[in-house]
């Protein structure tokens, strides 16, 4: 079976000099959960953002669900609707209620009518554990609640893939679990996911595979336990020595 996501020799260079992604090949099978780890500035976000072309690769190819997104004839909006993305900073729409945040793209992209979009929104809010917040505005919610709304907003589009860019890095410690719980549960449903995170416990619990990135390149990849406890490269080892020190 062909992979759900395929990056072929993807490179992304900023300002002609910063090689954020320096030739990455990555395949993610349908239903697979891949966790990307690596030092700050190593290119994790850029790799993730190349998958839905929020960053257009400088060269290489991005193939999602059998279609090349680098092919100018591919409808990018249509392709993106099949990929949810959750950001470190939530990026909820502050001028809209939680309900409107979740129904906007359903109506404009999926063409659902208001009743149907709201039904789906309430369903997803219940799924992420905050059914009572539909009429709140984002600023009235805690960080953990906002991030769960962001997840519900993506899920309401019924995507085939979910991308997470450090979804818990902006959260206070006591809120990290409530968000990770939602993501772990989602992983168990067979959703194809790529998650950038420093939460090693989460990677152990949910990841099929861990990818270690450094200086824009994939240095090592394998099952979480192997990569964590028996890293093959010195760079991987040095990284885990640092983050697992405490």
């Amino acid at each position, binding site marked *: 079976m062909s992979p759900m996501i395929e990056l072929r020799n993807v490179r992304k260079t900023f300002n002609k000099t910063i090689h954020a992604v320096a030739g990455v090949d990555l395949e993610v099978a349908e239903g697979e959960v891949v966790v990307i780890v690596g030092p700050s500035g190593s290119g994790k976000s850029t790799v993730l953002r190349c998958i839905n072309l929020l960053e257009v690769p400088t060269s290489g190819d991005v193939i999602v669900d059998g279609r090349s997104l680098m092919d100018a004839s591919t409808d990018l909006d249509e392709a*993106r609707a099949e990929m949810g993305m959750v950001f470190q900073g939530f990026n909820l729409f502050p001028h809209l209620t939680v309900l409107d945040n979740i129904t906007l793209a359903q109506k404009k992209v999926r063409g659902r009518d208001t009743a149907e979009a709201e039904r789906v929104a309430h369903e997803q809010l219940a799924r992420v554990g905050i059914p009572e917040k539909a009429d709140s505005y984002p600023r009235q919610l805690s960080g953990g609640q906002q991030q769960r709304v962001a997840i519900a907003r993506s899920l309401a589009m019924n995507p085939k893939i979910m991308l997470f860019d450090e979804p818990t890095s902006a959260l206070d410690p006591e809120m990290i679990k409530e968000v990770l719980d939602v993501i772990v549960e989602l992983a168990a449903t067979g959703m194809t996911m790529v998650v950038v995170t420093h939460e090693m416990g989460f990677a152990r619990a949910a990841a099929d595979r861990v990818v270690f990135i450094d200086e824009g390149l994939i240095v090592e990849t394998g099952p979480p336990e192997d990569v964590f406890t028996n890293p093959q490269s010195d760079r991987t080892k040095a990284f885990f020595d640092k983050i697992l020190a405490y």
Partner: protein
Amino acid sequence: MAGGPSLQSAGKYRGEDSLLPYTKIRNESEPPWKNQPYWAYIVGLVILAMGIKVFVDVDYELARKNIFPGIWLTIRATIIAFGLALLISLIVGLGQISKNVVAKNLSRAYIEIVRGIPVLPLIFVLALVIIPDISEAAGAPNSVPTDLRAILALAMIYGAYMAEIIRGGVQSIPRGQMEAGRALGLSSRATMRSVIFPQAARAIIPPMANDFIAILKDTSLLSILGVLEITRRARQYSASSFKFPEAFFTMTFVYLTLVIGLSILLSMFERRFNRDRVGER
């Protein structure tokens, strides 16, 4: 509120009912009389005093008769100029942030040129040279009446100033908002309409309101082109009657009243606009 007594009632209790000596509670908030908008009362009184003079004094009767007919033209010129300026500013402001190289550079050049020339000379050259040239080139010489040429000039000038407001407002919205919209599959146009503009509006409306008022005041510049608005009429009347104090005092009264009136209208609009968005930051 459940639980113990609030701070206020505790203070009251000690002061009024207990045998302990009255303790004055330190109060952070200012006494109400300090927070009155006295400035507004002063402005109101000044307008009232001017109004009494203008409307009651018999020496002002002719001044009123000669100047007041210009009020309607001033108001109309203001509204038309602002409306056109808004249209121009949308096109030029969004042109500036567009990815289209031609649109971007033409917009920028337009703004820089307009901002590089004082308003009065620019009104002259637009109304008396450029617009007539354009209408002639279009095969219809002298087809645009003077009043409209003058108003168009004002609109083109404020269009450039207001374009900067639009650009600034849109660019004040964090990049993540556009990214979130695009990641959901919304087109860039749809994200602009449903996500960026509604948020940018809050940054855009107050300075736009300022420029609305500025346009009202700057319609007085149109007097030098012979547009029979308030200032032109005041000058004509004073020149023919030598009643300079009456003419200029009446003119000043009319402008102040119009400007304060428009300010009140605009702040009501702003309040209404903000009321609909309670939950927002």
